């Protein structure tokens, strides 16, 4: 099977390395030296697995015309550019998006009629080098058909991913899972970005109304009200997800905090911003989510 993975971050690298064991895989990278390193050395996976995957690598998407599956694993901010690469190029292959937040599927759809799969992934890791990724959490990827794609497509793709050694669960409707993660991310990532705290015990402290956990819980309650107004029944309670994550003991650095510390644009528009827009669409008051969204946006503006 001919698989292309667009985006060589942690998630893209994990997919490309694993899938290269069961399919013909090409990783599309932004930097030529990144592509050259992967082409020469493959991608070493350590941590939860230990092997070297051998995908092809390129900065040029020209060859993806015959791809049967394209996994778009860029940051949410770069989905539009990836979609533009697919337009007039990709034949009838399937496009799977795995971005945080909302909006990636719609952005892809604007550029072509391909069958689409929608995924959220909970696996995580650390990129130690262009050709080395540490696989830290092997929690599953959930995937579901988008639009009018058949469920069988999600099942077939899930089988391929499972065969490659990654955990995956196909489902008919992604929204309950996606929204659970969206609310969790909108809350934890924004608070981490603003305070500089990794996702640690402060996020579950509830003693006083001015404790951080209290804010996290109020944000999650707003998110849950928005989900409910949107007709979504959450698959998991985001507050429990938060508490469990703080108890896990690894001082996880949410990506939005990494972005802020590196003074890079964050995914806040696709995560917290997406939730705020959903609140407006459904007429739900979300003053706290709106506040942290505006604060993170302003923090980004302060780089300029």
């Amino acid at each position, binding site marked *: 099977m001919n698989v292309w993975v667009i985006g060589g971050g942690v998630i893209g690298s994990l997919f490309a390395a694993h899938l290269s064991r069961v399919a013909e895989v090409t990783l599309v990278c932004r930097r030529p030296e990144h592509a050259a390193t992967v082409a020469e050395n493959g991608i070493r996976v350590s941590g939860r697995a230990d092997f070297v995957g051998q995908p092809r690598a390129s900065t040029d998407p020209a060859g993806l015309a015959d791809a049967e599956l394209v996994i778009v694993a860029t940051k949410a901010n770069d989905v539009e550019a990836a979609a533009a690469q697919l337009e007039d190029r990709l034949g009838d292959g399937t496009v799977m998006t795995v971005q945080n937040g909302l909006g990636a599927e719609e952005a892809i759809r604007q550029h072509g009629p391909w069958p689409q799969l929608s995924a959220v992934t909970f696996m995580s890791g650390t990129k130690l080098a262009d050709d080395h990724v540490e696989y830290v959490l092997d929690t599953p990827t959930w995937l579901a058909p988008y639009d009018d794609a058949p469920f069988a497509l999600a099942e077939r793709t899930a089988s391929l991913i499972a065969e490659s050694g990654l955990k995956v669960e196909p489902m008919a409707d992604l929204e309950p899972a996606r929204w659970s993660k969206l609310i969790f991310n909108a809350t934890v990532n924004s608070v981490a970005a603003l305070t500089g705290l990794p996702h640690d015990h*402060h996020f579950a402290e509830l003693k006083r*109304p001015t404790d951080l956990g209290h804010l996290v819980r109020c944000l999650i309650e707003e998110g849950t009200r928005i989900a409910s107004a949107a007709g979504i029944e959450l698959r998991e309670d985001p507050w429990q997800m938060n508490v469990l994550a703080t108890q896990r003991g690894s001082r996880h650095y949410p990506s939005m905090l990494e972005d802020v510390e590196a003074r890079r644009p964050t995914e806040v528009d696709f995560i917290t911003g997406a939730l705020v827009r959903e609140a407006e669409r459904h007429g739900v008051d979300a003053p706290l989510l709106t506040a942290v969204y505006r604060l993170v946006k*302003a923090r980004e503006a302060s780089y300029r």
Partner: protein
Amino acid sequence: MKVAIVGCGAVGSLFAANLAQLDDVEVWAFDLDGQHVETINDHGLRLSGAGEVVGKVRATTDAAELPGCDFGIVATKCMHTAAAIQASAPAFASGAVCSVQNGVGNEEVLAEHVERVIRGTTFPAGRVVGPGHVQWDVKGETTIGPFEASPAPMAEVDRLADACTRGGMPTHAVADARGPQWRKLIFNAATNPIGALTGLTHGRVCEDAGLRRLVSQLVDEGKAVAGAQGIELDADPEELIDHAARPDVAYDHKASMLQDVEALRQTEIDYLNGGIARFGREHGVPTPLNDAVTALIKGLEAAWAQ
């Protein structure tokens, strides 16, 4: 008249050096910075900028050396109030103590240690540039009045206001000094943490329509808490915020809390937004956004400790 300044940083020094110009006032200063104290004792306390003043002030790092005083003027950062007044209270056994600090809740702490307390709010500002030397950035007025729960008599408040005014720090004595205090509090609480969390200057905060709305939401919560206590603000914080955003006023000003955050110094958040939230709870007024920014700033402070 003997006056002791408790906490001789920028604001304390403005009071100390100016009061020391008066023949009928003996000024003492209690401060924990040994080099600052030594320089003041050797060379006097010097102000430059908005006014050039050198005051003869007797400074000490040991509160036990303070003589019995008619007045104390407390100008420490809010989080040091309790320790500072606990150490210096014996000097005010027959005197009155006035807070000129930021935020709310300081008078309550003073009243745990001394009998007669004066509520004060001051607008002059400056910064310490070296031992014994303070840059006086902005002149401004001070308003003082009896602290309701543990009041100094009005005659005593008048006497302190008169001395400050004659010394060069124009001060009004009023029966209810809560209005100016809450006006300054609401202004600071609505703008300081936003600057601190975003890194933006006051002008840039106000230019961003979304952020400016957040500032207004914080102002509204503060006004509601003030209203529930029957406090009448002496000016609308919204107008002051817009005024300060003008390029010729304070567009480029980095809020003091942003300066604290950049220097990894503990902020006064507990006495600003945290104070509004605390008084809100006492009076049954919800303050979700003030709670939120308090939690975020305290989160920032916790991050430095790691």
